[in-house]
């Protein structure tokens, strides 16, 4: 265990409530508010409960049990095997529908599969030791996965309806490395799940103790260490709290706390736009519709289809789009409401906890220091209403754009509040009265020209397509006749196509350019992009893993470049980036970021805050090996 290392590191100012040491292992949080007795063995775990009673309480009726240790590993309960068997059977049902009577040949294989899965599940053993969370599995080939507490990125609990019926909780312990969850337990006793979450993140050394030296190898560079204080007092209070492990007690008075009402969740659902999903759903449902599958249910449909097929296809296209929009609205409304029902976000010490879900309950926990970046997303609907969504980027978790994502920390909220939350989560202190929305600088004129050029190119394509798409008669002539003739006859349609696309494209180009922006806010960076849906990414400089500048020929022609700041992120997420910066600006910005990154005090060992970059000191010893030039080069500003 690494508690020892935290003590001498003396990261003073980040203690939250020193009067509140950890509770002992068997402390019941719900019943023992504000009376934390330092247990005999003074486990460093934090009881997440007392500070905010009633917000995220342990699942009722689940007494907490001491976690299994190495000497007494736990197995997954039989009910979990049942859960897994159900998944196989659900697949088999699909197979049955497809194969019909031939299904009986599959049955023996299915039986083997089910048996194998049950055995597999029963062979899983897990426990927690002072350094790590361990899962052992495998029947013939034993595999033991050891996730060091220091490497735990997030702990997410999930209870689907069946889990709830069977009294189980699924646990996902996220660590770095690939897209898949590193430590997954498909179902354990809820009491243990809660306990595990508290143990690994509540105040575990993973995120706290020695925030400096342990967390960085994990790549996430926990906000730990005294240095964060330099980023502003808030950073010290929120993120910097990481250093003071034992002190992480109940949420501080100004801790983050968000609770959405049913109405707000409904607003989130109504303003969630999932056009892609809607189109897919519509396309999938159109075919059976056309074949009259539902004609028994919807009588008039059958008479309707021939009429529909007579319509000109532009009308059809418009109808399709409208229908797709409707579908997507209904779909995303339902998914959002189910996913975010009872959405509650609480900061407890240095972890953020999200509780949400109507049918499937989620309890997601991530330490503030593990959050690499925050994204404020404003889709067109929400922009009209002055609303926004907030998402975090956490390494190890699944990324992507699922409707109700684990990474969302605010499904919908007033824009200013969303930005304020984002700022708090990354530790950025908005200066003065300016408000929490970071003031962004626009991209150079060239960026606007690029987008305008794209609109013109698209209009050109529109001109070529015009006669075919709009032209009916003229278009057909264009295909059949000699070249000159259709040009003569088709030109009104070419013009029309050109103008139509241009009329759509130019405003979009303008929107795309206006959507771009960047800002350097002390030791924080903000980038924004997006044509219709704007995404503002806010991150602390210290989370960068490298800096890349790319430029394609079109950008080079206009003196532009894209600056990307790769962070430890899920594979499906996009790295923070500034599109189409002025190239010289991009290079200067990169050098400033890198210089600030290495000079930032949080990187300094406790004793070495004398302005000497510890790295440089360490490096000079290596110089010999490289025959190093030790003068400071020009770019080292």
């Amino acid at each position, binding site marked *: 265990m690494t508690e020892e290392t935290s003590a001498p590191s003396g990261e003073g100012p980040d203690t939250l409530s020193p009067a509140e040491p950890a509770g002992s292992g068997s402390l019941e949080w719900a019943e023992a508010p504000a009376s934390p007795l330092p247990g005999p063995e003074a486990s460093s775990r934090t009881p997440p409960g007392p500070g905010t009673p009633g917000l995220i309480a342990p699942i009722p009726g689940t007494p907490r049990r001491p976690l299994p240790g190495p000497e007494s590993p736990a197995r997954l309960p039989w009910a979990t095997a049942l859960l897994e068997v159900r998944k196989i059977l659900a697949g088999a049902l699909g197979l049955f529908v497809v194969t019909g009577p031939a299904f009986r040949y599959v049955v023996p294989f299915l039986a083997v599969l089910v048996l194998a899965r049950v055995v597999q599940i029963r062979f899983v053993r897990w426990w927690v030791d002072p350094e790590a969370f361990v899962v052992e599995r495998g029947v013939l080939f034993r595999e033991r996965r050891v996730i060091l507490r220091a490497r735990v990125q997030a702990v997410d609990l999930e209870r689907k309806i069946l889990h709830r019926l069977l009294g189980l909780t699924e646990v996902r312990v996220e660590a*770095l490395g690939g897209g898949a969850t590193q430590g997954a337990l498909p179902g354990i006793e809820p009491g243990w799940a809660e306990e595990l979450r508290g143990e690994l993140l509540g105040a575990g050394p993973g995120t706290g103790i020695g925030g*400096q*030296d342990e967390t*960085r*190898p*994990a*790549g*996430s560079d926990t906000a730990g260490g005294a240095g964060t204080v330099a980023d502003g007092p808030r950073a010290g209070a929120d993120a910097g709290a990481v250093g003071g492990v034992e002190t992480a007690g109940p949420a501080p008075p100004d801790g983050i706390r968000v609770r959405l009402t049913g109405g707000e969740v409904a607003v989130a659902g109504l303003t969630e736009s999932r056009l892609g999903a809607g189109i897919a759903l519509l396309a999938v449902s159109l075919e059976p519709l056309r074949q009259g599958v539902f004609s028994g249910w919807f009588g008039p449909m059958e008479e309707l289809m021939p009429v529909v097929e007579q319509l000109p296809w532009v009308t059809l296209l418009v109808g399709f789009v409208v229908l797709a929009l409707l579908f997507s609205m209904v779909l995303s409304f339902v998914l959002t409401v189910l996913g975010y029902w009872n959405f509650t976000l609480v900061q407890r010490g240095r972890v953020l906890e999200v509780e949400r879900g109507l049918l499937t309950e989620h309890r997601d926990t991530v330490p503030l220091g593990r959050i690499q970046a925050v994204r404020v997303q404003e889709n067109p609907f929400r922009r009209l209403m002055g609303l926004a969504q907030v998402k975090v980027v956490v*390494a190890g978790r699944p990324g992507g754009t699922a409707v109700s994502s684990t990474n969302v920390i605010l499904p919908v909220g007033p824009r200013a509040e969303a930005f304020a939350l984002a700022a708090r989560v990354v530790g950025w202190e908005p200066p003065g009265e300016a408000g929490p929305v970071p003031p962004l600088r626009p991209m150079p004129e060239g960026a606007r020209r690029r987008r305008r050029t794209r609109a013109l190119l698209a209009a050109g394509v529109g001109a070529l397509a015009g006669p075919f798409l709009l032209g009916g008669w003229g278009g057909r002539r264009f295909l059949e006749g000699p070249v000159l003739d259709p040009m003569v006859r088709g030109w009104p349609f070419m013009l029309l196509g050109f103008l139509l696309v241009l009329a759509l494209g130019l405003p979009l180009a303008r929107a795309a350019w206006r959507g771009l922006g960047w800002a350097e806010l002390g030791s924080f960076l903000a980038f924004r992009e997006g044509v219709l849906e704007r995404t503002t990414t806010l991150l602390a400089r210290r989370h*960068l*893993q*490298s*800096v*890349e*500048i*790319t*430029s*394609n*020929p079109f950008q*080079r*022609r206009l*003196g532009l*470049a894209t600056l*990307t700041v*790769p*962070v*430890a*992120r899920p*594979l499906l997420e996009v*790295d923070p980036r500034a599109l189409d910066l002025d*190239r*010289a600006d991009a*290079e200067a910005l*990169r050098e400033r970021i*890198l210089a600030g*990154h*290495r000079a930032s005090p949080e*990187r300094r*060992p406790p004793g070495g805050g004398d302005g000497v*970059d*510890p*790295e*440089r*000191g*360490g*490096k000079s010893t*290596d*110089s010999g*090996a*490289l*025959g*190093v*030039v030790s*003068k*400071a*080069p*020009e*770019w*080292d500003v």
Partner: protein
Amino acid sequence: MTESRAETEVGRGPPGTPEAQGGAPERGMLHALDPRVRILWRVSAGIRAVIWTGAVAVAEFLGWPRGLLEGLLPGWVEPGMPTAGVALLALVLLLVIPSLGYRRWRYALRDHDLWIRKGIVVHRVSVLPYRRLQFVDTRQGPLERWMGLMELVVHTAAPGTSGRIPGLAAAEAETLREVLSRFGPDEEEDG
């Protein structure tokens, strides 16, 4: 392109870095890859070219997609022309691309970070702080072993980071690997 733009390091090395004249990797110098990497690239491009040309030839002369292609290809296309075309294109690319790539490829060991420039069409400059390096690999394929070349791959915690230096002389790559892996996060903490 104006002068001021040409001077930015996307076109050159980082400002103030002298170009190294071969030899072991040295800090503060701008290094090119080992010139033999062009041969390596040509050989592997050649293998790919043979495979592609072969595939097109098989498709064309065994007549399998004839029916498919018939309508698509204009009338002046004679038998053998698709294969010859692919072979010619592959040859041209094989001759041109490695030289261009070699000319673009540079790396520099700056004081605090590894600076890598590459990319023929899309120019890319990656800067990786030493302290962010998670691990450093060297890789050698059969061709590379034969030529005494080695590839160095540098990993950070970010999946989007591309730290890869191909075509280093084997000894050079190993020196570099040892040196870079010594800048682990831990060392920095101790320093």
